[in-house]
């Protein structure tokens, strides 16, 4: 199964956020992997261990910054990713969630094509060449590029009945081999996309569901999604995914046909896959890991430039706003306030007041304040006054 994990590089520190006109300049900042994404990697890993396949990371942003971030995901023995694809292009800079989701959806479509095309190519070679060396060499080439699952062709000693082997040994005919390859292609179209519930920079949580919608549009079929997934399982044939997801105080159990997209909650803990799944998982898996990241530009994706970057972003981030400052602030033990009601006062021909108890003595001339303080009518705002004002 093709398991696609959406990852994002986010600013490492909120104290060092580089912005140009409301748009993050990711090239100028230290980035870390979005912390919520680790749960998506765990979910992807669980699915791979149960049904096999390949975990592919898909990310978007400056490739020079993102590729080093993904490195640790390749060195991990158990969890982690097998391949990495970075959508990187100046034309994508400044994308809001809509433009981002469009680009990522194109990336998903291209990933699926990248994995189904070799199956077609092998089928074509079989159809053209019959029992012959070209089939074997084509299979070997594609397997080496990590593009054929073990069930089609394998160099693992434990896999003795790959499709190409059975074909070359005459166990199955050319027609049977092609029919089987069509089935393999069909299973590859039942991919799964997992992502974190949100990123720590934008915190919108919108890109997951929007990618499901974008992929639906591009593939011409409905790709369902589930957000806030706390538990999930896939059936062994890789046809459906059942998830438990939070909706307020409710937990909904949702069964989705694949392909589908899930955003994985921080509450998610992977299940333990049964040992009996291992042979099947191996059968459906690929040669191994390809640590060399692949970069795709807007042109590689065949993107409509009007739907990318600032041009493709309906929202504009404007100026910041300062809200919340109260009209009156009283510092305990510091602000001078009237300690009792005071009638209207006159000083240098100007009138002041009258004043209520607790009122700030702010706009009163210093000479008057000095006098009022001496009289005990003005003093620091104390706890007794505070208590009176808190829950009057």
């Amino acid at each position, binding site marked *: 199964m093709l398991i696609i994990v959406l990852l994002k590089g986010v*600013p490492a520190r*909120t104290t060092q*956020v580089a912005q140009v006109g*409301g748009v*993050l300049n990711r090239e100028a900042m230290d980035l870390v992997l979005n912390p919520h994404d680790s749960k998506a990697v765990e979910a992807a890993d669980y699915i791979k261990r149960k049904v096999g396949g390949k975990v592919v990371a898909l990310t978007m942003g400056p490739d020079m910054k993102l590729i080093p971030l993904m490195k640790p995901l390749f060195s991990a023995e158990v969890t982690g990713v097998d391949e990495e694809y970075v959508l990187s292009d100046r034309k994508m800079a400044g994308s*809001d*969630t*809509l433009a981002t*989701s469009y680009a990522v959806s194109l990336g998903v479509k291209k990933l699926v094509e990248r994995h189904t095309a070799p199956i077609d190519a092998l089928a074509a070679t079989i159809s053209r060449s019959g029992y012959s060396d070209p089939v074997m060499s084509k299979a070997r080439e594609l397997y080496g590029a990590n593009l054929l699952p073990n069930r089609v062709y394998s160099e693992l000693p434990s896999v003795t009945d790959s499709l190409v082997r059975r074909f070359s040994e005459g166990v199955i005919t050319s027609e049977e081999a092609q029919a089987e390859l069509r089935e393999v292609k069909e299973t590859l179209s039942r991919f799964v996309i997992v992502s974190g519930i949100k990123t*720590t*920079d*934008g*915190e*919108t949580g*919108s890109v997951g*569901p*929007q990618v499901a*919608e*974008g992929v639906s549009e591009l593939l011409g079929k*409905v790709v*369902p999604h589930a*957000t806030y997934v706390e538990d999930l399982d896939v059936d062994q044939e890789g046809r459906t995914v*059942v998830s438990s997801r*939070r*909706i*307020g*105080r*409710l*937990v*909904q*159990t*949702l*069964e989705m*046909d694949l392909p*589908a997209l899930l955003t994985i909650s921080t509450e998610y803990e992977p299940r333990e896959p049964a040992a009996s799944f291992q042979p099947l998982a191996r059968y459906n898996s690929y040669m191994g890991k390809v640590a060399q990241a692949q970069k795709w530009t807007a042109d590689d994706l065949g993107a409509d430039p009007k739907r990318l970057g600032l041009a493709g*972003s*309906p*929202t*504009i*981030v*404007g100026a*910041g*706003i*300062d*809200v*919340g*400052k*109260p009209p*009156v*602030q009283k*510092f*305990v*033990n510091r602000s001078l306030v009237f300690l009792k009601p005071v009638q209207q006062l006159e000083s240098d021909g100007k009138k002041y007041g009258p004043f209520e108890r607790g009122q700030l003595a702010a706009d009163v001339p210093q000479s008057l304040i000095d006098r009022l303080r001496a009289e005990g009518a003005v003093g620091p705002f104390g*706890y*007794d006054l*505070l*208590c009176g*004002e*808190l*829950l009057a």
Partner: protein
Amino acid sequence: MSADSKDVWVYLQRDGGRLSEDSLEVLAAGRKVADKLAQKVVGVILGEGVDGLAAEAVQFGADAVLYIDSPELGTYLNLRYIDAIFSLVKERRPYAFLFAANELGKDIAARIAYRAATGLATDNVLLEVDDYTNPALGEFKNLLIQIRPDFGTRLARIYTPRHRPQMATVRPGNFAPLPPDKKRKGKLERVEFQGGEYPARVRGVTELPPPALDLAGADVVISLGLGILKDGSGKPRDPREAYRLADDLRKAFESRYRVRGVIGASRALVYAEVKELQGLISKANQVGQTGTTVSPKVYVALGISGALQHRVGMQRSGKIVAVNTDPDAPIFRIAHYPIVGDLYEEVPKLIASITGGTAGAN
């Protein structure tokens, strides 16, 4: 879909037999925006047996309600809800469309925005209406100004100048529901919807027990931050002492003012997983953007510096008291009653003052 769009739509959710609290808040937000635009507020309700909710929406501020009442919608299947709502959007072209920024609202709104090829500003804490001029795009009259936390460092204005509807989710706890008016009149319109087959099925729904700690509903919230780990002289202190002080303060408030108090915490303190506070402070106590948004009558911040993530979760509190040794702590910018000092000295004085007041009253 820009030129002839009109009306402010609000998506309303149910909670049992009534409109949910979050929905009443979104309705109030929609009312505020629509009044400034001189447009109508239109409630959108989906479900089975929802005609009573439609009438309730009018009492709480809607001018009109579009509702789809169907057994098919008795269970929440997101794809079906999205199809149904999008069909209304496509046909009637609202000017703005607001949703609650909760799991359900965000689940629906994101996909609808993509399908409508429009923007979505999430988690707004404030909504305004104003003109907007952009050097490249020109001048726009009466836009919805969407105000949300931006990269955790500030509140930013988000504009959706060229696309309709302008879609936004509204963070719960930032708008007070309008008082119900049983005499209000509004147009209730039932709409039919024919859903299709979907590649997803709801297999079950279970309800979680209500949270043990009702932060959002408390009258008084006393919150602790990382500052409790040291006193004014910089000496380490056992944070349990601060917890006890906060709890004494809570009890003092409760007995003098007959209110309900709850202990809160900043994200920094919750994430620090301080050993001494195990069993006392957990994620359930967390106030802020990733925790609960609160707007109690009185909010007391003890040793909380006041990062934006915290402030957006409590800045609507009636009276904010903040104790911090750092006079430049951001929390002081929004506090009605800043107390620059050591909480280990100041809180006992506040408690004495409150309980002394009780004695005085007797």
